[in-house]
């Protein structure tokens, strides 16, 4: 059995930092007003928040997927600001917080291989910085709150364009109490070849993180964005309800990579959506290793001719963890193509589901889609559902979907063991081979880190 027991979760530590400002537990209209006032926002944003809050009250909980009945929304901390300002130099970041990020390896990663980096602690981004060479090219990379102040027109033009608060209950909640997240604008024909990273950290018990990320990749431009998430272990639950909007314009390219490794008391209920214009490419790379419950179905609206959308994901679930994730590809224009490759591993009582949609609209002539879902169930306590919807409104399209669920291949295991490799090592090798299409797509350093993580989780898995 693979030991994914989160008592070994290496990011489970927490530190004691008093917030500078907190709206306290629970959520009312007043909380929403307080957040907006604390952030000194323009009237339109307050209106937007209040409208979202009303919808949040009205919308039902999702009627599918994992059990959310234990999610305690009443005692959640909806907004906590830990510092008075945002820093550009790690030396200025308060010691305790810096220590946390040091332990998580964030500053080190930035020095070594990132074009820009930001770090969010509870509700607010505490640090962000970008290399001068990219600043000079006109790339804007900041936290979303600052973007609202500094680039009001650009912000208003794109904010909330892809994800409306009416979309689902947690998108509405995010609309009401959003805070932090990344804002990226890459100007025309600027190609940012080195990844930009954001790191999200939850620290207190029962806290909610509602980051809002907005990415605009202008015509012919390119960006590679990476996000990572961790939290301490607590006995009571936290909530991460992010909204991410990615606008990929004509001939542009965006890759959005997530390594989600929340502790096993975090509900991660996210709404991620991208729109790809003519000839644009949107790639989601999505690794779900942690959390208590994940519900996440990143989508690509293929709105321009020849637009391309891909999703490459892995999910690992154990010990009562429920990963319910997938992708949605919406073909709205001619000759668009999409590909979904999903690899899942369930073990020791975990559930891992693929839930996805491929839709070919009326105007999707000549479009193609390919979906592949593979699942390994490691032991007899784990389970997996594969629920793909394929909706076709056009005769001139083609779609292929394939899925497989099985245990670890005994033939492969037998072969390796006959070569003198231990069962534990052989199992690990097979799992690594299984997730390889995913790790290959990661920036090298992340691939190494991910391999280390998986291998760490496999330790002691047999015998």
């Amino acid at each position: 059995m693979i030991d994914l027991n989160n008592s070994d979760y290496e990011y489970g530590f927490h530190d004691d930092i008093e917030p500078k400002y907190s709206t306290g537990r629970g959520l009312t209209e007043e909380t929403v007003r307080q957040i907006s006032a604390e952030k000194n926002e323009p009237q339109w944003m307050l209106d937007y928040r209040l409208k979202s809050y009303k919808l949040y009250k009205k919308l039902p909980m999702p009627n599918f997927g994992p059990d959310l009945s234990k999610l305690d929304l009443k005692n959640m901390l909806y907004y906590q600001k830990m510092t008075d300002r945002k820093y550009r130099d790690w030396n200025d970041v308060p010691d305790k917080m810096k220590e946390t990020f040091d332990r998580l390896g964030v500053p080190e990663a930035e020095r070594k291989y990132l074009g820009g980096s930001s770090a969010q602690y509870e509700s607010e981004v505490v640090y962000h910085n970008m290399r001068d060479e990219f600043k000079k090219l006109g790339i804007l990379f900041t936290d979303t709150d600052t973007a609202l102040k500094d680039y009001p027109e650009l912000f208003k033009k794109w904010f909330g364009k892809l994800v409306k608060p009416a979309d689902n209950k947690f998108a509405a909640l995010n609309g009401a109490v959003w805070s932090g997240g990344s804002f990226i604008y890459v100007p025309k024909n600027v190609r940012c070849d080195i990844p930009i990273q954001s790191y999200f950290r939850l620290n207190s018990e029962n806290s909610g993180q509602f980051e809002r990320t907005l990415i605009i990749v202008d015509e012919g431009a390119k960006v590679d964005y990476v996000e990572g998430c961790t939290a301490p272990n607590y006995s009571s639950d936290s909530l991460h309800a992010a909204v991410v909007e990615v606008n990929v314009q004509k001939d542009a390219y965006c890759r959005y990579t997530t390594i989600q490794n929340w502790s096993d008391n975090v509900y991660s209920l996210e709404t991620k959506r991208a729109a790809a214009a003519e000839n644009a490419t949107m790639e989601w790379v999505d690794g779900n290793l942690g959390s208590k419950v994940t519900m996440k179905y990143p989508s690509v609206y293929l709105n321009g001719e020849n637009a391309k959308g891909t999703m490459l994901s892995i999910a690992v679930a154990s010990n009562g963890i429920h990963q319910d994730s997938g992708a949605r590809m919406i073909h709205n224009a001619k000759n668009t193509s999409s590909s979904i490759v999903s690899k899942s591993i369930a073990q020791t009582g975990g559930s891992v589901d693929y839930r996805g949609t491929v839709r070919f609209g009326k105007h999707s002539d000549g479009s193609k889609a390919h979906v592949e879902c593979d699942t390994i169930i490691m032991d007899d306590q784990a389970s997996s559902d594969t629920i793909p919807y394929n909706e076709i409104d056009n005769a001139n399209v083609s779609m292929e979907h394939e899925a497989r669920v099985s245990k670890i291949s005994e033939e492969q295991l037998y072969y390796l063991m006959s070569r003198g490799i231990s069962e534990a090592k052989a199992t690990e090798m097979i799992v690594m081979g299984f997730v390889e299409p995913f790790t290959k797509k990661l920036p090298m350093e992340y691939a190494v880190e991910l391999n280390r993580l998986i291998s760490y989780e496999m330790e002691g898995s047999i015998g």
Partner: protein
Amino acid sequence: MTPDKLVQLATENNEPDWFIQKRIEALKLMDELEFPKMQRFDYHRWQLTSETSRIIRNKFEDSQDYILMDIFEATKKYPDLIKKYYMNKVIKSNENKLTAYHTAFLNQGLFLYVPKNTVLEKPIKLNLQQDSDSPFVSHILILAGENTQFSFIQKMTTVGDQKAVANCVVEIVAQANSVVKYAAVDELGDNVTSYLSRRAYVDQNAYVDWSIGLMNSGNTIADFDTDLYGEGSHSEIKVVDITSGRQQEGVNTRVTNYGKHSIGNINQRGVIMDRSKLIFNGIGHIIHGASGANAEQQNRVLMMSSKAHGDANPILLIDENDVLAGHAASVGQVDQKQLYYLMSRGIDKKTAQRMVIRGFLGDVLVSIPSQEIREQLIQTIERKLENGQQISENS
């Protein structure tokens, strides 16, 4: 309908008290129960229930090898078997509004009992005909004793053009080591809104083979299910479906593996024409404990018109690790190269199109065990495709 009227109708039909009681209980349940759930398909506006005003008794040919009789006659002659199996073991009357409706308003049906160790060389063939002046609430209960082997072939048609409701249930109990091959060609008329539910209960090492040609012209909801309870039980479900005109169809095909080493395969092919809509949900469910189980499914759909709507949703629900489960789905159009090739050989476009479609359905067609039913189905398919082509020409 008041319970009194239903009692009167059943009494006139000379039904035993326990059977009438079952009707009344089901009638009461109808209000409480929901319509069966069909993913991605909304049919709540359809008229799917209508009161039965007369009950039809049918005569069936006797045989020395098996018992084939009217279901109402069977309630008198084999009350224990009917009590045990009819809407009680395979499909239960309290599952949903439509199964309750079925039990309450049943107006014709048959009981086939093939006793232990019987092997029938010739298939049992039946033509069921609906008269559109009345709802068609028909039941087929098939009880295959241990070590039996036989084929059952059923055809369904409509006469008359009044708007009508059909609610047809088939239950198969396949006892240990039996082999049951069931084939059906459904050709209910375009004036009929139907609910079809067919399900098998498969015991140890038994095998149930379903070949279904869903060729109805009217709106249809279909549930095709197999419950693989026995160790080593096995089922193959093959469905071909053509929708045309403005027809709407929702098909749920489900195999549930309970037994160890059970095998359940689904193979579905749909051709969607004109402005019609077809939703194919394939569900493979492996229950915890069914180690060594195997579930495979294929859902393939051919889109013939841009005004058509098609869904191919293959769903896997797996609660066991020592299994092999997989599914494949595809949606596409008529292969242009094949079409072009045939036309270059002097075949006109429409004929060529029909030939390519038949090739697409071929996979499923060739696996239909009876040659007769295969040929009938091919004829029906030809007719349906020709009609479909005609409609698209005129629109």
